[in-house]
């Protein structure tokens, strides 16, 4: 099965704030910009709960004092969300085994890493498509080596 793991900050995300301020200065009206580490994983059936526990106990990935960790059963971008892929980056596309802090992630047969951005309007709703598109073209993705997945 394929799923996505989303790891975001619960403390203020200064990088997202800087990006949002830059977009606003460029006239791209983003009310809130959220940034996440996004992993798309293929895992053996029945390993979902074991994977979640393994991730939560791996302090290099998830620190409960600063991170939020969520497993998403739909491994594709939500509305007003863009995943930035670096297709030729070995760090983003590595083969198994997937070992973090000396422990293998159980049941994982494939792992891809992305930086994900979620754009909201001033009312807290998903930003319109044209705003997302402009933000991606202007700042969030350099297509010379990155690919925006929406």
């Amino acid at each position, binding site marked *: 099965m394929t799923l996505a793991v989303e790891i975001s900050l619960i403390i203020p995300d200064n*990088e997202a704030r*800087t990006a949002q301020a830059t977009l606003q200065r460029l006239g791209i009206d983003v009310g809130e910009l959220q940034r996440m580490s996004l992993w798309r994983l293929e895992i053996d059936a029945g390993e979902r709960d074991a994977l979640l526990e393994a991730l939560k106990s791996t302090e290099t990935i998830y620190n409960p004092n600063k991170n939020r960790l969520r497993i998403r059963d739909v491994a594709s971008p939500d509305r007003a969300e863009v995943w930035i892929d670096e297709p030729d980056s*070995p760090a983003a596309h590595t083969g198994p085994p997937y070992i973090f802090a000396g422990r293998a992630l159980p049941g994982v047969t494939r792992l891809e890493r992305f930086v994900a951005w979620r754009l909201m309007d001033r009312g807290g709703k998903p930003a319109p498509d044209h705003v997302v598109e402009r933000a991606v073209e202007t*700042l969030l993705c350099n297509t010379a080596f990155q690919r925006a997945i929406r």
Partner: protein
Amino acid sequence: MTATLRKASMRVGVLVFPGTNSEDETQRACEAVGLFTDLIHWTASLQDVRRYDALILPGGFAYEDRVRAGAIAAHDHLIDAVRQAASDGKPVLGICNGAQILIETGLVPGFDDARHPQAAFAPNAPGGRFLCRHVTMKLNAPPARCIFTQSMQAGALIPAWHSNREGRLSASPAVLDRIVSGDHGVFVYADERGTCTPEAVPNGSRLGIAGMTNVAGNVLALMPHPERDAWTFMHMDAAPERARGDTNAALTPSGGIALFEGLAAALHR
């Protein structure tokens, strides 16, 4: 006007963004070749920047490299003045993070007056790690191709330090073709004898490119740091040992200073 006065009348502005960290050595290298140099902080006005005869974007981590290396700084208000300087034909040099900023603005390679990136200095290969390594840059285009190299010998070798995490030129095949056909790859990595080999390229940079210029040849984005190998005592060869005990010899500008001599020559032309 004497040569000295003429030199003194030329002013170089070194832009400093939050996170820039190589402004002092860049300023010293400029002053070593007789150029008046000021640091221009990000709070400066566009009018402040426009009075300079040349601009340098030094190395560091502008805006902490948030989003991507150089991406936020490429949208800083001071970049309007950098675009104007480039358009006016003034020399504009980006070193390391400054090169990343220039490529994010689209000023290099600068095809079709782009205002968006057409290429990238992507994470180094293999592994996307920070690499600190002494390198040799070889002038790979006719000296007249770029304003900074017009006073150099063909095939000149310049020592420098590669010190970055994102220095691997990356672009689409179509853009790479234009980079080649337009002689934009002014500097390539080479070994100490000037032979271009895959082993001399520290990071998998496409075409082995270390420095790239724009269409007009007045903007240069250079990934390695020539200012960190610009005095005899800094060199990795036997020169510092030969200069031992001779302060004047050890403090003689040499090696990477050639880039700044090229800038001075361009301003005095």
